[in-house]
């Protein structure tokens, strides 16, 4: 079946309710952030909690109560998942935009935080305008990384014919998220504006995003999905057979 033909039925079967309810919480956290002082770092925590919620919502995107029927239909797994991912990311993007718009009130939204300038100011020269950047780009990167990581875990955990991997993906995402905050600073993916590890945190996020994207692609390729899972998750097939 063509990709365009799949859009309507797959979107209707995609569990978007988790993302919608997560989106409401994300918007609330964006509003809460706007109550904080006009300083990006003091607004990081609520915005990040909103992003985490959206990623948790994304973890359920591959849950498919009808997967037993879908596997015998003439459509590829990667096509069905592509439609789900695009639909989910559009919803996440919309809520994230809303939360960031709310959270950035009174600040200067910037895609990338400018490097501090070391040049001195000449006598008589006007002082530069104070910059209070709200790092939109970093928040988008964090959201993309967390959501893709959740989907990668879901794609690894899903069992052909009985795809309900959201539960496992949520557990793993929450556990890894907690542990990531306890990592040593040089490899911690979280940072605040002006902190020493601002750049290295972005590198870690990009690396996780890349690996997650790769895993997601590999485990959404139907033939490969089964073969690789046998290596990674030896009991998956027997479990599915027992059910």
């Amino acid at each position, binding site marked *: 079946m063509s990709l365009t033909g799949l859009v309507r039925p797959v979107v209707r079967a995609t569990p978007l*309710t988790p993302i919608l309810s997560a989106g409401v919480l994300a918007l609330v956290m964006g509003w809460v952030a706007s109550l904080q002082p006009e300083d990006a770092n003091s607004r990081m925590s609520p915005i990040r909690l909103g992003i985490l919620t959206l990623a948790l919502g994304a973890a359920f995107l591959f*849950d498919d109560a009808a997967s037993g029927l879908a596997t015998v239909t003439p459509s590829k797994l990667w096509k069905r998942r592509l439609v789900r991912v695009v639909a989910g990311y559009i919803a996440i993007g919309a809520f994230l935009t809303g939360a960031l718009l709310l959270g950035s009130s009174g600040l200067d939204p910037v895609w990338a935080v400018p490097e501090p300038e070391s040049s001195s100011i000449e006598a008589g020269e006007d002082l530069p305008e104070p910059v209070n950047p709200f790092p939109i780009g970093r928040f988008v990167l964090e959201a993309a990384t967390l959501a893709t990581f959740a989907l990668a875990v879901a794609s690894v955990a899903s069992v052909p014919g009985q795809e309900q991997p959201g539960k496992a993906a949520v557990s793993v995402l*929450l556990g890894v998220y907690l542990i990531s905050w306890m990592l040593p600073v040089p490899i911690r993916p979280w940072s605040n504006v002006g902190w020493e590890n601002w750049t290295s945190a972005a590198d870690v996020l990009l690396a996780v995003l890349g690996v997650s994207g790769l895993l997601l692609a590999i485990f959404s390729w139907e033939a490969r999905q089964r073969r690789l899972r046998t290596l990674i998750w030896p009991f998956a097939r027997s479990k599915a057979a027992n059910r």
Partner: protein
Amino acid sequence: MTLTEQHHPETSLRPTPWQVAVQLAKVESRRILLHPATLIAFAVAVYAMWALHNVEAPVLNRVSASSVLPVLIFAAGLLIATSEASMRVWKTDQSEALDVAPTPPRVRTIGLLLAALAPVLVAVAFQGAAVMVMTLDQPVTAIDLWDVLAGPVLAAWAVILGVAVGRWVPTRFTGPLTVVAMVSVLVILDMYFLRRRFGVLPRWFGPFVPLDWEPVEISFRPTREHLIYLLGLVGVFAVVALLRGPSGRRTVLYGALVASLVVVGIGVQGQRAAYALFDRATVLASYMPPQADYICARIGGVEYCALPGYERWIEEWAANVGPVLDIAPQDAWPESRQVKQYPTRLMDQGQSFELTYEPGVATGLWWSRGPGGVRQADAHKFGMSLGTAGLAVGLSSERIAGVWTEVRTGDGEGEYYLEFVPVDEVAPGVEDEISYYRYCDTMHQGRAVVALWLAGSVSDSHRQYLDNRIEGMNEWLDNGQYYPWYLWEFKIQEVYYARQLLDRPQPQVRSLVSEHWATLTDPATTTAQAVRLLGMDLLPGHEEWTELDLEHYSEGAVRCR
């Protein structure tokens, strides 16, 4: 045997609802404990418990609260697991299934609520084991039982909240969403916009109250009232869970709901009343001289004074002070040989400038434990030796005030800048303009090198600590960056010279230091002069750094007298 039982013998075998609920509880508690979310959360909680407590000497009044945080992580996993267990009865979305089920929903809910007992026992065992291990490691102060009990109650709280939300919103996303909402509530209650308006009171309406930056002794911690509040919430959630679905005992449930809400109200009111009575200044004064009831001991000519409950540390302090005085010449640190404890965090590193210290070494309510030399927490041991060494070479511990001063420019407009002056020289009437405090500056004073060498000579771990702190900081040598240790800020150049001295045989350096003691401890002796006296070569670029420092950093610096 009655007539009815004769006709229907099977009725005597029918279990009562309570028996069913207990059997269900056994099954569900096993399921909840073996759920992936619970297992992952427990693993993270074990790691968190280890990470939180492996670097510091156990202070039991802090351990009481900090050991609850890992239980909170465990509770988050329990909440997800329980909400999922709770929705099983609803997941077909067909009421007929409920009607024909052999156990009514209320009994199932009771079974789930009873299942909270197993996670609570696990939480008790986990937290109890951790606290027990810490009590074996020469702890100080005493356990706050109310604070510790918050751990198991939190586990019950999470399980019962999970049942309630799972009953009312039976989706698989409910549990995770509730966990994030719970964390969000914790974060929001601690936010600046609430603190500014209501102080620290709102934090106490969350399920868990983390330790504040300040010591427990001077913090607002109404732990008993908070426990009452949590127990009230447990009751509310349990009744809310039971209210879902058909039940013939609505009146009893509503009565229980009212009773639980009353308990919540008592907890809230108790916390509010405690906050109204809390006067931080009075509490702080009771832990400061002259009001504090110090316990003092004299060891090796130095008087050590600990706050009540902390006297066990005196011997460990002496092990970090004594060796410095053994290495230094006899007449070093001639006056006020005293080490005194104050209600502050870390050797007075820039946090508690409101405290006024008596002459001598000041120490706080934190202390490192273990072999030392490699961890951040070892700052306590090294800091105490450095404090002693600093006083031995004559560094003063006077505070410097940063005062906002207005200067009129040529066009008549006012500009403000920070002026640094010793506290006793601040002009009368401008105390309110003081922005912050710091201590005097050791920049390019030769005695700073001697002090750092003395502190690094105490033990191998002290030397290791010195090395670790400046590892990878070569670029800081030429940018004038200060490196704060103890009261004073040392320039990184002086640390590098101290390391050179530490590489040489101690008797040789000791002999040189004793020979030139008067010159080396003279505030007028520069680092370059001291380096030559001690037979070292100047590091490449030394003159340029000195010039840069004097050009860029001398404005805000008040040299140590």
